């Protein structure tokens, strides 16, 4: 248990709650497996009931009654306004720029928001074979804004990613050539990083309760840039925690 953890919530809860808060009511949100799935469904059950969930399996406006265990759950198709084929999802919806917010995870991320989910080591002979790209490269390119959810550690926040699976702002922060705004937020178990408006370097702008700048620096594999006036993130509210725990327990709610 980390320093900032309490009896009521831990750093993973804080990370999910912080991510959920970034969704606005009415946002069209592309949801992947894992933390994004939790965050998006949490938003829908708290402050953003009209947040529109799109799953790359083809479900548009899915209204899952329970937290789906995979992006291909029957509940998604059964509750969606429409279900389209996977090619249509990527061509007409993701690629066409109809997604307001895309969530991504990362095995490695660098200071310019470039993400690796492919391999540690050489691609042809990797030390660790990771799952690969999935929908990430095109979400990273085309979503209006991208929120990365990832635990902060020197192994994950690296000087240089072993493989660029999804482009943030490019090798030096200036190479991004894509319709979307890129990774506008990186939400970790320590706080929130945002690209510097001039250089696109990820900058620590908010800290979760109980976390220090020093801890965040230690969890980062490069000299971490810190905002002049760093903000504190509000701890999870009772309402948020209740909804989160119900989701995790896969309790059903009326859609």
């Amino acid at each position, binding site marked *: 248990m980390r320093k900032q953890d309490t009896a009521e919530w831990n750093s993973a809860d804080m990370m999910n709650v912080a991510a959920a808060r970034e969704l606005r009511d009415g946002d069209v949100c592309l949801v992947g497996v894992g933390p994004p799935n939790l965050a998006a469904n949490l938003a829908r059950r708290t402050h953003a009931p009209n947040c529109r969930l799109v799953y790359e399996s083809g479900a548009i406006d899915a209204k899952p009654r329970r937290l789906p265990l995979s992006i291909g759950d029957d509940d998604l198709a059964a509750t969606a306004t429409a279900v389209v084929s996977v090619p249509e999802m990527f061509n007409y919806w993701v*690629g066409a720029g109809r997604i307001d917010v895309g969530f991504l995870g990362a095995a490695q991320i660098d200071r310019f928001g470039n993400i690796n989910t492919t391999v540690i080591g050489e691609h042809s002979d990797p030390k660790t*074979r990771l799952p690969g790209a999935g929908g990430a490269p*095109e979400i990273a390119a085309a979503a209006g804004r991208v929120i990365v959810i990832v635990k902060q550690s020197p192994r994950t926040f690296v000087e240089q990613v072993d493989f660029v699976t999804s482009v943030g702002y490019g090798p030096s922060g200036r190479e991004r050539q894509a319709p979307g705004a890129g990774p506008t937020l990186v939400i970790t178990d320590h706080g929130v990083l945002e690209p510097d408006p001039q250089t696109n370097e990820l900058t620590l702008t908010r800290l979760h309760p109980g976390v220090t700048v020093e801890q965040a620096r230690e969890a980062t594999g490069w000299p971490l840039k810190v905002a002049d006036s760093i903000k504190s993130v509000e701890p999870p509210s009772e309402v948020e925690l209740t909804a989160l725990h119900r989701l995790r327990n896969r309790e059903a709610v009326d859609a």
Partner: protein
Amino acid sequence: MPSPVPLSEAIAAHVHDGDTVALEGFTHLIPFAAAHEIARQGRRHLTLVRMTPDLVYDQLIGLGVADELVFSYGGNPGVGSLHRLRDAVEKHWPHRLVVHEHSHAGLANAYVAGAARLPFAVLRGYRGTDLEEQRDIISRVTCPFTGEELAAVKAVNPDVTVIHAQLADRDGNVMLWGITGVQREAVLAAERAIVTVEEVVDEFPEHTGAVILPNWVLSAVSVVPGGAWPSYAAGYSVRDNDFYQQWDAISRDRTAFLQWAKDNGLPAAQEEVTAHA
């Protein structure tokens, strides 16, 4: 024109050593029973194509069926790694697995091109990623009207595609619904197509979002109720999430995996070899 045939006949007739084989189904309708029959018949040196290898290819890879893999996301959804896939890539067990990897958008469009019998497809994507280094399958084209440079993917045309569907009718037409993924494209991109179905009906019901494939684009239809387990068939079964969890432990360990294979009558290339080589 296909009237139902036993699955063993369908696989024996249409899946050959060295073939490029696509088993599609996006979480839903994964043709596990057909995959096991392919393994049971001892097929070797396959190039396996599938957006999400999932447990179905983790099993085939562990059994030594595949030499190459074309894919876009190789995890156990919601659980973690595909350990047999990792072992094959990282440690070459039971032998080396050559991978060709796409994004979902890239592989979906490679099937789209294949279904249209076009040599490539254009998409927004890949720009600036290291995936582009696989120049034999990912390249660029320039728009002749605007000069914009876009990604291009080489078409995928499997020798045979296998899918699982809910229904066939008496004429051998096939219907699937729910999450239909890339199955239409995978079938139409293939030289031959095999479909396992939950049941045969006189007339198809109405289902919004259903895909219907006429019998004349199919090579064989086999009735295999539950043929998607531990994945699911909407209207017939639910996903066996427990098995997806259990697979993590089975697949993590070569001995446990080989025992699983033996228990299920699936011949493994490495069953005679020391498990922890």
